[in-house]
Structures are given as structure tokens and as C-alpha cells.
């Protein structure tokens, strides 16, 4: 089995496990977990919103690690992984903002509030979206990889700020949840969905990195005329 086939199967397996866990977690969250006393059924969005938040930050942390690894060690595989992690991280950050708005409307009365957590999350989304745009504006693969890695390291400074924003400033958004602050009845669906989202994220990064490797191989391949002349 070639490395390409292996990564394809691994990505597919991650996705399958992730989707199954998400389905099970969503069943638990929608049908088994009790109704929250103050927010009612609206609170059930927590079972996707919180796992999306955790995994968005985890994914962008992975992008940061891949960026550092590319600059430190070199190697196209780190750039391909960086491309995958950036796109999945931006997708999850976008979903996070949308889910947050849907939850905010019935509970806070507005779709959006200029609260530190929401503002820093929006900044994180746009900062990394800009890096995806940067990749599309640079033709040379080596320059694209280096610049994207540099921009990722610079933009990553916002990710810890997003995490700690609810502690550092007076925020409308609640503090980070922990086993001490969440009722035991809410654990299982929350954790099942968190692991489901983690596997989906890993699957998408693996498959997206595989696609990036194929594109890069086509880009770095010699032109057909040279190939014919060599043979």
C-alpha cells in the first residue's frame, strides 16, 4: 500500500469514527440529557458549540506547530499539513461564530455582542482567513510555504488571547466549563461530541494534506516537454 493510499484510508477512518461519535453524542445531547433549568432546550447547542470551540483552537494550535516545524526542519509534508490545518481551523472558527450567534439570540437577545470573547474569536477567524488568501496570492511553492508559516506564527498570538479573554476582561460570555461547573448529566454528550469533532478534524486535515501533496507534486513536476526529452 502506498503512502497516499494509507493517508487516504486513515483520513477516511478518522472521518467515519468522528461522524459515528457525533451522531451518538448528538443523540445523547438531544434525547437523553435533561433540559437545562434556566435556558431550556436552547442550551443543547452547547453540545456542538463547546466541542467546536475546543477543536477550533486545537486545530489552529496544530497549524502553529506545523508552521514552526516547517521553518525549523523544512519538508513539504509540514506545509501540506499546515494548509490542511489552516483551512479546517478557519472552517471551525467560522462555525463557532455562527453557532455562538444562534445561541446568543434567544439567551442574550442579540445575534452579536462586542464582548471580548466574541471579538477575539472574530479576529482569530479573519486573521487566519487572511493567511489562506495569502497562500492563494503566492505562486512560488517555497515562498508560499515560508510566508504562510511566518504569518501563522504571527497570527497565533491571538489564540491564547481568545482562550483567556473571559478571565482577563469582564465578559458577557461565561467562563470556561470544567467538570466542576458542568452537571454530571451533561458530561457524556459533551465529551462524546468533543472526541467526535476531534476525529472529524483529524480526518479532514489528513485528507486535505493529501490533496495538498498531490497539488504540490503536480506543481513541482517538470514540464511535459522536459519529461519527454529525458525519456
Amino acid at each position, binding site marked *: 500500500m502506498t503512502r497516499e493510499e494509507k493517508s487516504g484510508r486513515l483520513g477516511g477512518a478518522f472521518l467515519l469514527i468522528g461522524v459515528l461519535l457525533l451522531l451518538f453524542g448528538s443523540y445523547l445531547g438531544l434525547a437523553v440529557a435533561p433540559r437545562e433549568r434556566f435556558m431550556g432546550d436552547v442550551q443543547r447547542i452547547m453540545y456542538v458549540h463547546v466541542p467546536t470551540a475546543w477543536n477550533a483552537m486545537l486545530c489552529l494550535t496544530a497549524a502553529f506547530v506545523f508552521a514552526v516545524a516547517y*521553518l525549523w526542519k523544512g519538508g513539504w509534508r509540514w506545509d501540506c499539513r499546515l494548509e490542511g490545518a489552516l483551512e479546517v481551523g478557519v472552517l471551525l472558527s467560522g462555525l463557532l461564530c455562527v453557532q455562538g450567534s444562534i445561541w446568543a439570540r434567544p439567551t442574550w437577545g442579540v445575534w452579536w455582542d462586542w464582548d471580548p470573547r466574541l*471579538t477575539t474569536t472574530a*479576529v*482569530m477567524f*479573519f*486573521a487566519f*482567513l*487572511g*493567511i489562506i*488568501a*495569502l497562500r492563494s*496570492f*503566492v*505562486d512560488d511553492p*517555497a*515562498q508560499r510555504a*515560508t*510566508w504562510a*508559516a*511566518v*504569518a501563522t*506564527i*504571527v*497570527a497565533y*498570538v*491571538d489564540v491564547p*488571547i481568545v482562550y483567556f479573554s473571559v478571565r482577563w476582561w469582564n465578559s458577557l460570555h461565561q467562563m470556561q466549563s470544567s467538570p466542576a461547573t458542568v452537571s454530571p448529566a451533561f458530561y457524556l454528550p459533551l465529551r462524546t461530541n468533543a472526541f467526535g469533532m476531534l476525529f472529524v478534524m483529524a480526518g479532514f486535515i489528513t485528507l486535505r494534506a493529501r490533496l495538498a501533496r498531490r497539488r504540490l507534486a503536480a506543481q513541482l513536476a517538470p514540464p511535459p516537454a522536459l519529461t519527454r526529452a529525458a525519456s
Partner: protein
Amino acid sequence: MLSAALRKEALLQWRGLARTLAVLAFGGTALLLFSFAGGPDSGALREQAPGYLWLALLLSSTLALSESFDGEQEQRALEGLLLLPAPAAVLFYGKALANLLQLAALGSGLLPMAVVLYDMPLPRPWTLLGILVLGSAGLAAPGTLYAALSARARARQTLLPLLLFPLVVPVLVACVKATSLSVTGDPMGQLRSWTLLLVCFNAVYWPLCGLLFDRVVES
């Protein structure tokens, strides 16, 4: 070495003074347009003046920064500079300091326009000058790194603000709040915390951008 790099940048900026004046005129036009968007209520305009001032400086900064590597792009001058027996970080800090001075000068030029157009009071001019320098430093460090990067990419006029604006949101928020507090008064003593945020931002981004600059220019 840093002083030589700074001298070179200062000389380039002095020779390109007409360009700096054009950027200042752009900032002034932006200030004028903001007053139309805000409406004729002079009280509301005075209240929002710090925000308009910093937005005008932010918009002007993209014009100033995007052209800061034009000289190095011509006839592959950057490659010649990299061959000099000096670390690339020296080039970065020379360029970033020159950009800081240019942005602070632009801000100092826009400030009287904001005072005239919005009737903005200036009870603590030295504090405001300090905020202006700290805010310009916050824009200059990541702005110089991204200008070096976007100078060689396609659609650089789009790319620079796209990369820079989300990154400098903390600078914009802190500068607007600090300016507002220094203009309208600070009964709760909040100015210190916003200034501290600016200092922290600069303490993170000046070394980080200097460290990464050589990877950008040598690729």
C-alpha cells in the same frame, strides 16, 4: 549597524516626502468623510473623534507601509542588502523604526485636523503623544513584516490590509480607548491598563517580527 540602516531609511523617506504628504492628505480626506458618515451632531462627533482619528491613521498606514519595500524591490536591491555583513533583523528594525517615525508623524499631522473638524479637546497633549507613539509602534512592527511579505505577492494592496487589520485590532481598541480617556478625562484610572495593553502588544510583536523577518526575505 542599526543606526546605518535607520539613516538609510530616513534618507529614503526624506527623499519620498511628497509621498508621505500624499498619504497625510489621504488621512485628512478620510477624517472629513467620517464626519459626513457620523452626521452633523457636533457632540457625537466630538465623542467619536478618537475612533475616527485612529481609523484614519490605520487606513493611511496601509498606504505608507505597502510602499515601504518599493525601493528594495527595484533592481533586486534587497538581495544586495542581504549580502551585507549584517543580520536581516537589523534591516527589519531599521525599516520598522523608520515606519514608526513616519506613522507617528502622520498621526501628529492628523491630530490638528481632528481637533479642527471634530472640536476635540486636548487637555493632556503629552499623554496623547505617548499613545500616538505606542500605537504607531504597534502598527509598525507587524506592518513592516507583512509589507515585506506582500511586496512580492500578487494583489499586495489587498493582501496587506487583509493580513494586518485583524492582527492590529487590539492596538486599535487600546489606542481609541486610551485617546478617549486622555481627551475626556479618566476618573476610574483606566488609562494605565490600556497603555499596558499597548506596551504588551509591542513587547510581543517587535521581537517576534524581528525573529521571523529573515525567513521572509531570504525565501
